């Protein structure tokens, strides 16, 4: 029986798992770690290094270590948020064909899917070593608010890593699947996913084996990285004040401060104050500088309050748009490392007027859900196979070992889950005369298909172009070519728009009068094109 991998491809960390008859088994890295940093390094000695080893090169060769690639994958480099995100990384990004970002490292030009494929390949190899069988199929998770271009690019990354990406599922949906699978729950839950680079919140209705996403909302550029940067900036100005050196000019120094900021952030989740020194700062002229710091949790909370407020605003927004009262929500799942911050949990508890669910492991639950879905798709999960919900109990100290410790068999037979994911963004079409029409609504169930009839606006027109928009961002242009020449309005072309289960849009067109298939293709900005794949 074939084995399919479930992969949570994160901004900072990735996790992979497979579904086995007794529960979910995590893929361990070379040193037995379950969480694999999504970092790719191109050291001077040659070759490609991925994972925890790559992270070490951040200090010695900051310009050749690619991190947070997920923030750029499938993006239009000209988008303002992308430009802003580019200021936060030390490696070089240039504009490539079709406005896609290209990483330049050691004279190599690589697309973002190529970078991410290294991470996927690393996970694939680890899995093959651990399981002793070749692995071809995978389910990869993406943030719920990923756009069409980002989803296509993620699939492309999988293809480059030699994986057949059977399905892209949304991260909050995967978390809900891990939470509810095999437990026959009837409830309304909220999944609050605040990770390293992205923020998502989803409302789901669990109805036995049916997982229906009611609505999903999020902020693509909001995550733990931003909190680190806020704290890093404070450290930088401290450095400037105490040591009289501006670290912002110095990539290695800034990286060191950022790593310090991350460590302080994590420390403050458990402790009320952090005090110490960041040493080994390579200052021009004097190596080994030391920066003393003293930060209380309260100070840190003031610093990040704006970011946290934003997540709470989005959460309230989703409740308003679905018309659901907070009292109807029976459980709040915290996913992603940033939900460990006490302020986040506290604000969430205030919003929902109940304690959040802290029993799940925020780092691993998404990969668990992906593994369950992967197993379901290849037919590995048969009812009564004993595969069932084992997640939510997992945490027992978040131990790195002892995968067997968190397996709880369901009391009854588990049915195969039915995931009803949603369309990530409203799709509208802009036609002659400046009209805009909404075609597929945000939060509609996918896969979904709708058809529209288009006609020509001039006599003997042989080409129709439409600009298509997602959330007011131009997505691309729909082109209908080689149309038969007819008086205007005479030609009736039926175009069907389908968002598939991965959340990717497909377009087909047919001439309504003759029934002949028409050429229709969508030129998506920022998507990998044939020219760049070479």
């Amino acid at each position, binding site marked *: 029986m074939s084995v399919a991998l479930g992969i949570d491809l994160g901004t900072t960390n990735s996790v992979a798992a497979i579904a086995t008859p007794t529960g979910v088994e995590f893929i361990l890295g070379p040193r037995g770690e379950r969480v694999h940093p999504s970092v790719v390094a191109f050291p001077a000695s040659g070759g490609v290094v991925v994972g925890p080893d790559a992270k070490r090169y951040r200090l010695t060769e900051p310009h050749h270590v690619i991190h947070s690639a997920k923030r750029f994958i499938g993006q239009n480099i000209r988008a303002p948020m992308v430009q802003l995100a580019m200021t936060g990384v030390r490696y070089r990004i240039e504009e490539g064909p079709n406005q896609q970002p290209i990483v330049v490292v050691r004279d190599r030009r690589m697309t973002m899917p190529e970078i991410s494929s290294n991470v996927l390949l690393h996970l694939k190899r680890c899995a093959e070593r651990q399981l002793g069988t070749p692995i071809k199929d995978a389910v990869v998770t993406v943030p719920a608010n990923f756009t069409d271009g980002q989803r296509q690019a993620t699939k492309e990354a999988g293809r480059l890593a030699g994986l057949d990406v*059977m*399905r892209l599922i949304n991260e909050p949906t995967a978390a809900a699947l891990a939470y509810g699978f095999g437990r026959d729950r009837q409830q309304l839950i909220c999944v609050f996913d605040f990770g390293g680079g992205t923020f998502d919140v989803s409302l789901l209705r669990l*109805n036995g*084996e*049916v997982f*229906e996403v009611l609505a999903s909302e999020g902020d693509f550029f909001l995550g733990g990285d931003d909190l680190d940067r806020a704290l890093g900036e404070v450290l930088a100005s401290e450095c400037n004040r105490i040591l009289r050196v501006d670290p912002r000019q110095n990539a290695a120094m800034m990286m060191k401060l950022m790593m310090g900021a991350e460590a302080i952030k994590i420390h403050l989740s458990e402790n009320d104050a952090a005090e110490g020194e960041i040493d080994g700062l390579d200052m021009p002229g004097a190596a080994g500088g030391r920066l003393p710091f003293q930060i209380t949790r309260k100070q840190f909370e003031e610093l990040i309050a704006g970011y946290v407020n934003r997540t709470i605003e989005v959460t*309230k927004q989703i*409740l*308003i*748009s679905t*018309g*659901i*009262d*907070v*009292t109807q929500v029976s459980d709040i799942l915290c996913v992603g490392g940033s939900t460990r911050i006490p302020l986040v949990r506290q604000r969430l508890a205030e919003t929902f*007027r109940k304690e959040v669910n802290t029993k799940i492991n925020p780092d691993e639950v998404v990969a668990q859900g992906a593994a369950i879905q992967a197993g*379901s*798709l*290849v*037919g590995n999960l048969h009812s009564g196979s004993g595969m069932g919900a084992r997640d939510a109990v997992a945490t027992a100290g978040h131990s790195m070992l002892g995968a067997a410790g968190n397996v709880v068999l369901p009391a009854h037979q588990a049915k*195969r889950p*039915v*995931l*009803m994911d949603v369309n990530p963004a409203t799709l509208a079409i802009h036609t002659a005369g400046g009209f805009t029409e909404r075609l*597929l*609504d945000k939060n*509609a*169930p*996918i*896969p*979904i*298909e*709708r*058809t529209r009839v288009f006609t020509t606006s001039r006599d003997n027109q042989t080409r129709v172009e439409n600009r298509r928009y997602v959330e007011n961002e131009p997505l691309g242009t729909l082109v209908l070519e080689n149309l038969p020449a007819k008086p205007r309005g005479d030609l009736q072309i*039926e175009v*069907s728009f*389908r968002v*598939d*289960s991965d959340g990717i849009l497909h377009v087909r067109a047919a001439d309504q009068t003759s029934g002949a298939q028409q050429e229709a293709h969508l030129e998506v900005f920022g998507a990998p094109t044939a020219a760049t794949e070479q």
Partner: protein
Amino acid sequence: MSVRSEVLLWAQRVVARGTGTPAHVLLEIKIDSSVEDAQDAFHKIARTGHPDLHRASLTAEEIELVTTAYARVAGAYQEFRQKNMQTMRMRPLKDDPPPPRKTPSSDRIAALRPQSKTPEGMAPINRSGTLPGVGVPAAGSPSPSSSAPGAPGPMNSKALIYYRKAEMCLRQGDLKTAVLNMKMAIAGDPQSTFLRTALAEIESELAKK
């Protein structure tokens, strides 16, 4: 009949109906069914017809057929839900409340306040298209000349969303943001006198402070 042939027959039936089929036909419900009925029907179809369930047992072509059928039913579900939500919002009250008075008064604001009998937190929209605590006179608030203190009445969805936001701000006592949201609501529905009066009231309240 096996599960396999059953789902294929269903898919063929759906696809054969063509693209112009009314939503309720694809969902196999009555035309005047409620949104809840549509949801139940859609869940029922999904439990057997979701393409993921058959991925391992059908050929690629058969999967394509089932996916097309399921996607069309999903489209029908969206269409049905959208249409019903709209009529739910647009439908005027059976016993039309009198138009809101032009003179600003604070009783409508009082009705929006927590002391009204609105349940805590968000007010879910009810069947008659009004907001609870708005369409009905609030307990204890002065009920002028036998009339309810003005329902929002027909309002488009954009205006309604901002109106509800404004309502939430009022509950929290944030008058400034309420004014902003009210203005956004008016931008969404410039004809509504109800919104304009409500805005005037909040503004006068704000001026008092």
